[in-house]
């Protein structure tokens, strides 16, 4: 619904170099399949520890402790966990398998002007696989979208250009230091790649998450509007507010949530931000 025009199948490619502290899809950060543990559903029956070769599971004070760092996602425990408290995020598949699955819904794409969207993580993290998928999608005449954080080289985007109908491109922060602090990476490349796309015939939707206290400032708003005004290629800018709906996934994956305790943004707040950005003369902005 929100990942491109029409009815679409979204293929999530695991792996991302950014570590945005507010990320709501932490299961997509690592390139490897990962074990998730839903503690609420566990009855500590001990079956998982019996089949595990790597001592991932231990019982402590009557509760199951999961050492995610030891797990290689072999999946044996999934087959014995009758409570379904364990699951594996991610699986290895071939590009042909993916395309066959995507094509099952071709009639829905045709009726709605939809197609396939490759998302992540950042799908460029598996660049070779991504181009393979895009080439096969194009050979089938599908509409393609790529959702990217802007990681990668200009050369890579050059390669993607003829294969992608619409880029959904994240623009997170303007201040390089803040960008580094909250994502672990510079934004220099991000901006360079965006400018390349915008000046080489790409169709771009810019997506901007606003996190209170991080990037809800006038300089960033001005920069967003500036990009919109400067580049005709940016068809639309989607602004949305931070939310913590993904927080529970961190717990299940044994990861640490960096925004713990921060409340989700009220929809009215997003409206306010949008009107502020519009003040800088950009009218392409909608609520994401």
């Amino acid at each position, binding site marked *: *619904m*929100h990942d491109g025009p*029409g*009815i679409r*199948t979204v293929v999530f490619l695991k792996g991302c170099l950014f570590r945005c502290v507010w990320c*709501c*899809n932490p299961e997509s950060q690592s390139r490897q399949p990962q074990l998730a543990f839903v503690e*609420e559903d566990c009855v500590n029956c001990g*079956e998982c520890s019996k089949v595990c070769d790597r001592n991932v599971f231990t019982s402590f004070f009557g509760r199951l402790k999961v050492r995610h760092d030891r797990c290689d996602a072999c999946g044996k425990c999934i*087959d*014995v*966990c*009758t409570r*379904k408290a364990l699951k594996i995020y991610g699986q290895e598949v071939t590009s042909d398998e993916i395309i066959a699955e995507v094509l*099952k*819904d071709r*009639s*829905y794409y*045709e*009726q*709605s*002007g*939809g197609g396939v969207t490759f998302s992540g993580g950042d799908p460029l993290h598996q660049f070779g696989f991504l181009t393979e998928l895009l080439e096969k999608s194009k050979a089938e005449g599908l509409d393609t979208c790529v959702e990217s954080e802007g990681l990668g080289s200009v050369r890579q985007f050059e390669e993607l250009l003829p294969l992608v109908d619409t880029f959904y491109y994240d623009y997170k922060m303007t201040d390089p230091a803040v960008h580094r602090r909250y994502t672990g990476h510079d934004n220099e490349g991000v901006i360079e790649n965006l400018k390349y796309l915008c000046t080489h015939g790409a169709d771009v939707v810019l997506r901007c998450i606003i996190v209170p206290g991080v990037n809800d400032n006038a300089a960033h708003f001005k920069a967003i509007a500036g990009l919109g005004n400067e580049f005709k290629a940016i068809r639309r800018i989607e602004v*949305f507010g931070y*939310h913590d*709906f*993904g927080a*529970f996934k961190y717990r299940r994956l044994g990861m640490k949530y960096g925004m713990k305790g921060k409340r*989700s943004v009220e*929809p009215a707040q997003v409206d306010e931000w949008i009107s502020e950005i519009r003040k800088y003369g950009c009218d392409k902005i909608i609520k994401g």
Partner: protein
Amino acid sequence: MDKRQTRRDFLKVLGNGVIVSAVLPSFLASCASKGAGTVEVHRMVNLYDDDKDYLVSQLKRFTQVHQQMQKSDRLKCEIECMKIQYPLMFCEVEPGDLFAGRAKCPPVCLSPQAFDSGGYCLNSGAMSKLESDPDLSAEARADVREMMEYWSQESSRARMRKVFPPKMAEVLYSDNWTSDPLCGAPLYRLSGTQCDYDKLCRLGIGGLRKEIESCLSSGKGTPDNVAFWESSLMALDLFSEVALWYAGHVAEMLERTDASRKAELKKIEASLRNIAVNKPDTLHEAIQLVFLWAVMSGSINYGRMDEYLGDLYVNDIAAKRITEEDAIAMLSSLWTLIDSRKTTWDARVIVGGKGRRNESAADKFAFIAMETTKRVRGVIPQFTLRFNSEQDPRLYEAALDVIGTGNPYPMLYNDDVIIPAVMNAFRVPYEEAVNYLPFGCGEYILYHRSVGTPSGVINLAQILSLTLHKGINFTTGRREGIPAERYGDMQTFDDVMRCYKENVEHYVEQLAYHEKLEYDTIGCEAPYFYLSLLFDDCISRGKPVFDGGVRYLGGTLEAYGNTNTADSFAAIRKLVYDEKKLTLDQMVKILDADFEGYEKERMWMLDAPKYGNDDDYADTFRVEIDSHICNFTRDMAQKAGMHSYLIVIINNNANVTMGEQTPATPDGRKAYTFLANANASTGGADKNGITAYLNSIVKPDITIHAGAVQNMAFSKETFNTYRDKTKALLSAYFGNGGAQAMINCLGRGDLQAAMEHPEDYQNLIVRVGGFSAKFVDLPRTTQLEILSRTLY
């Protein structure tokens, strides 16, 4: 069927998740109470309500007429019985009613469909209650007892049971499918009639009379034909008598009413007087005529209303006799009267579709009927839209708007797919197939050309269980089904499938003969004049509807458990034969234990491929299960002596009732719990999203049965905010061969219910913001968050 449903019962009816039922919990919450689970019944007032002795005296007369005349002259018997019955049946016009015709059935009555029976019907519960009524005189009490004795032997149903041939009696050994673990069971009603109300409105009583008189004066016809025509005229006389009787009562009432109500009552009186003789000249008269006729006939579906009321509506508007709002007020009253008949599982009102003689006027009417449905928001009528690629698209758009408000109506039927399917299933040409109509829970018939009452239920999951136990009913220990030697050692997968199929055929065969026997017995107990006169070709043939009159005498068989059975075969194939994780004997042992102590194995069974995920491993079993029973059933028509005999895979609470009698199944379903609903996947089993689900449900062949029901649920937000996408989704589904859709838009109340009963909402998908999730998978805090934010 039991109307005393609790909200929770309805949830069970619905099956789970994405797939809910025709009528949604929040929608039904208004009629199902919270605690005791009883529906508050509005008491309609009747002539005998204050005088039970009078009722008994009239029932006694009714009984005597039956005793004296039924066997010697069933035609006159019906007329004489109906003369006694109608004053007992019709009730007072109530405040706000714009038409007369409220009615309730006396405890003994003649009707094609009353008290799970047809013909001369006995409501033994009501009779027992009457017997113990403290106000009753001793003499009347003795009469009641005597009548109960008589009718327990002489009701049409009892008479039919007595003439079962031995084989039928052996295979269909019990009627108690709601409480016994049966593989198949007979039903005894003559349901699903849709009369030619268009003819009634065009000709009126006078015109029908002329048609019959011309048959009589033709000098042709056997003495039986002549007797039928002569009695038909008497039936028309009786109808006129009823209309005038009612008009008289309304006139009396006029004297006691205040000025504001007087005009409405006068209109009712005038309409009744006119339609007693003449054809209707106005919309009001036509509605009055049709509803009164419907009650007299006992028919509880209302046909193509836009066709038969369209012209009069357009004329009234053109002549400025009424406004659009007046028409909506009339229809609202009609909807209320339809609702007062409490025929929750029927009450179809159909608009749209190919083959209407007056498409433009009919469309205009359809719009106001749509608007009425939007405003009245009742559980019935079951408002239905037929649509096709050549029709005015605004009708379909209007339908989506009504659905988007959370109304389960209109239900959508796709002509482009269904007409060719009906041509094949019923073996009729296009000109006949274009008249298909769904009745009841979704069975197709050919509008006033065919009958197709479902006269049996079959439980495929029960049959699979019987097969796995080599002919022993696990619950009762009774041996039934095919002979023991047919099983052999049942080692291979093909053996299991073959034995299952032979068992299915064992029951279908007798159910087919039963259907024909029902027409020959209950169907011939009376001429059912008020059906016969409006069914092709009864008048020209001079024969009653079920006794040689109707053009196509057909039947249907309700199949349940198709999905569970298909999923079970997938699990057997995968675990026993592909992966060899279990032997067949081990699997049966696990089922017998209802998975107690076998949680891991149950999980394997649950994790085996399931229908509804666009996964051919499971879907091909569903296709195979369906095509086997549908084709075998369809081929039984000729052997049993009917024009058609077809499976229906429909939507009511039998999947719950029968599931509660069915042992554990290899798809991981616990013993004595509900079966998947109609053509839906097992709740929670469709994990691949809506397009995969829709791709799966178009796989079973729809050209070999008489209807299968598809339920879908969307959140209101999704359905309305992304209307373009939901529309495209539906277009693609219908373009891919989707025949039908019952769509529910869930609101806030449903999400709250999902928090309380997550097991019933396994597949409710919500957009969280950044990702989508199954609502029930989310932690409670997030659920609350969503509830507080995104749904209205």
